[in-house]
């Protein structure tokens, strides 16, 4: 019985890992599409969001089957229940990558290199956050999971930086009002992606320790 359970847990880990790669790719591709104004790439990201949605359903179903069939306890219960929570944030990250790509479809050339640089840093940081989350979950590495919250501060600071740059741009250049607002939206999506990554890291901490945001959940 335990062997079957271990196999099911391994399958769950594999699916989570795959979903982690899918959303990291979505973020990476979204920023590339923005940088190069590649509308084809943007369309591909929007289409690929359904794969992420499907993966979420697949993982939810696997978790519910595990809860039903194996009624796990202790560390096993924490792993399955945290996976069930993590996929919700992972799916939202996929949505935001698609949201960014939707904006790419309506944008033309970006006039503000400083803002683009900030957005690229935000994309890079959030991708790293997700990478750490996935590795922390799979290797039960608490230290790695704890690093993610600090990285979200970097993303938040970058968002503030973008906001200031946009405020300046609005004052200096009244012609491109719509474009700067679109860029602000993109920055906000990256900021939200950072928040979701932090949420994921909190569930990783729970899966290892049973403590979620300094509170014992069970």
């Amino acid at each position: 019985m335990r062997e079957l359970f271990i196999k099911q847990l391994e399958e769950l880990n594999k699916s989570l890992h795959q979903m982690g790669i899918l959303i990291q790719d979505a973020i990476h591709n979204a920023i590339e599409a923005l940088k190069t104004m590649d509308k084809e790439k943007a369309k591909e990201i929007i289409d690929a969001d359904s794969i992420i949605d499907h993966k979420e359903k697949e993982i939810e179903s696997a978790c519910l089957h595990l809860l039903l069939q194996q009624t796990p306890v202790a560390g096993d219960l924490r792993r399955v229940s945290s996976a069930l929570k993590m996929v919700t944030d992972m799916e939202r990250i996929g949505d935001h990558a698609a949201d960014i790509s939707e904006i790419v479809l309506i944008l033309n050339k970006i006039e503000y290199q400083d803002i683009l640089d900030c957005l690229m840093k935000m994309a890079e940081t959030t991708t790293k956050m997700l990478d750490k989350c996935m590795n922390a979950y799979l290797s039960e590495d608490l230290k790695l999971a704890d690093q993610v919250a600090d990285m979200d501060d970097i993303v938040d600071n970058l968002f503030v930086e973008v906001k200031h740059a946009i405020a300046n741009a609005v004052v200096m250049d009244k012609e491109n009002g719509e474009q700067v607002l679109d860029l602000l939206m993109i920055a906000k999506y990256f900021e939200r992606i950072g928040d979701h990554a932090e949420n994921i890291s909190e569930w990783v901490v729970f899966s290892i320790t049973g403590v979620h945001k300094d509170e014992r959940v069970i």
Partner: protein
Amino acid sequence: MENIIEIKNADLHYNDFKALKNINMNIPKHEITALIGPSGCGKSTLLKSINRMNDLVEGCKIEGEFLLEGKNIYQDYDVNILRKEVGMVFQKPNPFPMSVYDNVAYGPRTHGIRKKKDLDDIVEDALNKAAIWEELKDRLKKSALGLSGGQQQRLCIARALAVKPKVLLMDEPTSALDPISTLKIEELAEELKKEYTIANVTHNMKQAARISDTTAFFLLGEMIECNQTTEIFSHPRNNKTEEYITGRFG
């Protein structure tokens, strides 16, 4: 939290075999305490020791203290009085080959209650508490052996309750029962703890998690961990406990 039973430095030998090793644990009043562990870990031995069921076992030697309400079970109690205070329900229902009524009235009669009205009241009360009065009130004179397994087990609980014990020891009380009967016994245990204290030996992890307040895990004669049930099943302190409850061994 008041402890009705205290076990201190308890060792138990069956000849050369040490079945219990330095057990220290308390059983809180009006709670359900589950004793879990793989076969041969000593949990049933410990349960039987609380009721002095090992008294007649040849080669059995017990050291340490077993206290019921502060009094030593082995020194301060007559065994008949002890078993009135501490009832026992076994794995396999064991009704006496007599009527439902006589099964329940058996204990009170041996303790000197003779008046029919008193016995009638005791039988009805005990069957009610065992959640089986409605099913059996018209079959009181019928043989208990004709009842289903689940009914027989609840009758055995009623028989144990009829002498108004303080503690009810249950040794895998549902392992021979179907799921519906098991559920009835579990609900019954939840109800009974308001008036009694229950110690339940079980191999059924889910049952321990569902109904007990405290869980003690035993392995090779040692008590590895004893804590609130939610703690044991969510954050066991000891790796061996986690390995056992998650099915890695046992």
